[in-house]
């Protein structure tokens, strides 16, 4: 068996006196696409930050390729949520990718032929060559996310952490960006941890699901985890999983940002 890219053993994270999850065991294999699901406040983003070395685990361990995770590890690529780009910034498509190559280094970064070739190669890899010189602020959300995928690949990572990279994109861009991430992880053998509130855009690509709820979790294929019985037990309250037209809809999952407020225990219908 190949070494897992990421290993979590009996991991626990407590932030501000609240335990987000405990006893978390997880192995992510090279080339595996793992979706991280769960309500708001269940600790999905905090899981990514723990792997990035920004939060220290309160118990257990997290290992990247067998070594304890550390802050700023180049073998991890990170793709954040799309935000509106600022037009007060001098930044074109290719500059965003260049930051992924050497943005952490000191000095002004003089343009060399080698650097230009690397940027060009990454632009081509994510299909962004034709808007390489367009200001980032003038690009659509989907175009910006393509660049962010390119930026995250610049350090030749082994593990890709994606934090809601499809949020605020239209359906077509959601499909394009998730297909791009899927193609890249296959070509490069990347482990992917994909945090999302809606699994449907990535359902076709997902190997396994990590579902976080109420400090507990389930790991398995979508068919194993996304079932009414499993999620009801996980949430300790009735939850319905409905499958329709190849989509999965989860009804009745409590929102954990109001975990102690019983009035919200049966939140509105939400797509998992």
């Amino acid at each position, binding site marked *: 068996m190949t070494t897992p890219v990421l290993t979590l053993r009996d991991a626990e994270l407590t932030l501000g006196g609240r335990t987000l999850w405990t006893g978390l065991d997880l192995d992510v294999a090279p080339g595996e696409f793992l979706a991280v699901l769960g309500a708001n406040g269940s600790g999905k983003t905090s899981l990514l930050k723990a792997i990035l070395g920004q939060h220290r685990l309160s118990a257990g361990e997290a290992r990247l390729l067998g070594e304890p995770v550390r802050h700023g590890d180049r073998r991890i690529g*990170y793709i954040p949520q799309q935000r509106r780009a600022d037009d007060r910034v001098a930044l074109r498509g290719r500059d965003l990718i260049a930051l992924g190559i050497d943005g952490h280094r000191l000095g002004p970064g003089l343009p060399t032929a080698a650097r230009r070739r690397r940027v060009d190669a990454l632009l081509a890899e994510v299909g962004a060559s034709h808007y390489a010189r367009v200001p980032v602020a003038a690009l659509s959300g989907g175009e910006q996310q393509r660049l962010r995928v390119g930026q995250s690949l610049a350090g030749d990572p082994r593990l890709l952490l994606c934090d809601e990279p499809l949020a605020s994109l239209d359906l077509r861009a959601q499909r394009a960006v998730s297909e791009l991430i899927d193609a890249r992880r296959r070509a490069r053998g990347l482990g992917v941890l994909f945090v999302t509130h809606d699994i449907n855009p990535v359902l076709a690509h997902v190997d396994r699901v990590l579902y976080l709820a109420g400090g507990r979790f389930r790991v398995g294929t979508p068919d194993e985890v996304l079932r009414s019985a499993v999620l009801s037990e996980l949430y300790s309250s009735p939850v319905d999983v409905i499958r329709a037209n190849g989509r999965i809809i989860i009804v009745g999952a409590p929102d954990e940002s109001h975990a102690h407020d019983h009035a919200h225990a049966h939140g509105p219908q939400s797509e998992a």
Partner: protein
Amino acid sequence: MDDWWSQLFDFSDYGALIVLLRNSILAGAVLGVVGGLIGVFVMSRDLAFAVHGISELSFAGAAAGLLLGAGVVEGSIVGSLVAAVLIGLLGTRARDRNSITAVLMPFGLGLGILCLALYPGRAANRFGLLTGQIVAVDDPRLGALAVIGVMVVAGLLIIWRPLTFASVDAEVAIARGVPVRALSLVFMLLLGLAVAVGVQVVGALLVLAVLVTPAAAALRVSSSPFWVPVLSMVFATVSLVGGILLALGASVPISPYVTTISFLIYLVCRVSSARRAGRERRRGARMGAA
């Protein structure tokens, strides 16, 4: 009317005056490079209002330095740095930063006015700190400004890439291990020094014309991370040196010349970018129709 004109523009004895004001012109060039360069980050980090706040505290420091005999340059640097560090530490989020700045600004201005009111010296010096005193640049002061200028430019060049990363994409920069908070503090110190230089040359009230307007103009005509800083420095230097040269024989302060040139450059850049955008839209519409 003629009277006004001769007060505004008087080019008699120009050669002799240029020699006399050599120091002022050099000081203007130093500030042009410093202000144009740092202005790029003032824009991308949304610090225009903070610059104004820092400059008022810098004015207070300079006035206190004048009153206590500690030196105007020294006082203005201390005031700048205190304000920059306070704003940097207390105002990590934009909303906090604006309110901290708004709290500090009138306090600094009031403090400065108090110090000037107590100062028994000539009245011309008093006004100078607020609206510019470029005619009074002697050799030691020019030397001090040049040293500070070199420090700011060198500091900016060293942290250029990680600061850019932190400014445009803090989340990813943190994930990549860039020390975003430390960089922000270092930048505020450099900004404090740059503002102190600006206060010496154009005065506390007009620092924005050098630290913000040129970079804002450059961003209108380019998005290249190389050309925007270059254009910004050129615009700032042209405004300052051009303003001083125009003002040489005039009997009014140089600041209105500097701010007017700076504003005109911005206007031209804005109009030209709007026209270019319009052309591209029309071309796009034609191609769409074809």
